[in-house]
C-alpha cells in the first residue's frame, strides 16, 4: 500500500493530535462537569467561600470547607485529579446553613474549585490553589 504525500501528512497530524489529547483530557473533563452542573450559565465570583489549606503535606486527607449562603447545591472539583469530581452537597429544607466540611484526596498541587447553585438559579464559583507535598492517589 502506498501513501500519497497528502495522506502521509494527514497521518502525521493525526498522530500528533493523539499524543497531545491525553494531556488536555482532564481540563476538558473539568469543563464538561462544570457545564453539566451549571447548564452553561455564567458564574459570579462572590457568594461562595471555599476554605482549603495553602499547603497540604499529605494529599490523602486535605480538609476543605465550603460555605455558600442561600445555595441549594454545591459541587466541589479537584482539577488536577485523575477524576475531577470530589463531592456534591445538596441542602434540604432543614439545613442550618449552606456549608459543609470534609476531607478530600488530591493527587498533586492543583486548584480546587467549588461551584454553588443559588436559590435564584444563578451560580457562583470559587477556587483555591493547594500545594500538595505527597500526592494522595497511591501507586
Amino acid at each position, binding site marked *: 500500500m502506498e501513501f500519497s504525500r497528502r495522506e502521509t501528512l494527514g497521518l502525521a497530524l493525526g498522530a500528533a493530535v493523539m499524543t497531545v489529547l491525553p494531556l488536555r483530557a482532564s481540563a476538558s473533563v473539568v469543563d464538561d462537569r462544570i457545564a453539566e452542573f451549571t447548564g452553561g450559565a455564567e458564574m459570579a465570583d462572590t457568594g461562595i467561600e471555599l476554605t482549603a489549606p495553602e499547603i497540604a503535606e499529605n494529599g490523602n486527607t486535605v480538609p476543605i470547607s465550603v460555605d455558600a449562603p442561600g445555595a441549594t447545591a454545591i459541587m466541589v472539583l479537584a482539577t488536577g*485529579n485523575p*477524576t475531577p469530581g470530589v463531592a456534591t452537597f445538596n441542602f434540604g429544607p432543614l439545613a*442550618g446553613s449552606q456549608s459543609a466540611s470534609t476531607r478530600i484526596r488530591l493527587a498533586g498541587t492543583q486548584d480546587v474549585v467549588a461551584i454553588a447553585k443559588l436559590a435564584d438559579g444563578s451560580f457562583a464559583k470559587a477556587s483555591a490553589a493547594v500545594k500538595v507535598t505527597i500526592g494522595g492517589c497511591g501507586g
Partner: protein
Amino acid sequence: MASGVKPRVKVPKKATPGEAITIKTLISHQMESGQRKDKEGNVIPRSIINRFTCEFNGQLVTDITIEPAVSTNPYFQFEALVPEAGDFKFTWYDDDGSVYDATKSIAMA
C-alpha cells in the same frame, strides 16, 4: 463488602427550637478509589461510599454525592435546623449495595 464499616455521629443531646446545630459524622471505610494498583500491577477495583444523606423527622437536611476523591473514613460536618424534638437519621450508601445507617435523638432544652 468492605469490612469493619462503623458509622459514628456526633449530635448535641439538647437544642432550643429553631436552633442550628452542628453535626459531625464519620464512617470507617477504606474508600478504595479505583486508581491504586496492587503488587502485581492490577488495578484495585473501586469500592467507595457514593452517597450520604441526613434527615430529621423525615425532612431532608443534606444529601451528599460522594466521588472517589473523598478521603478514607469519609468525614462530614454540617449544620441542621431543629424545629422540634425528634430523630436524626443518617444513611450511607456503599458501591456494593450495602446501606449503613445511624439514628440519633435530640430533645428540646
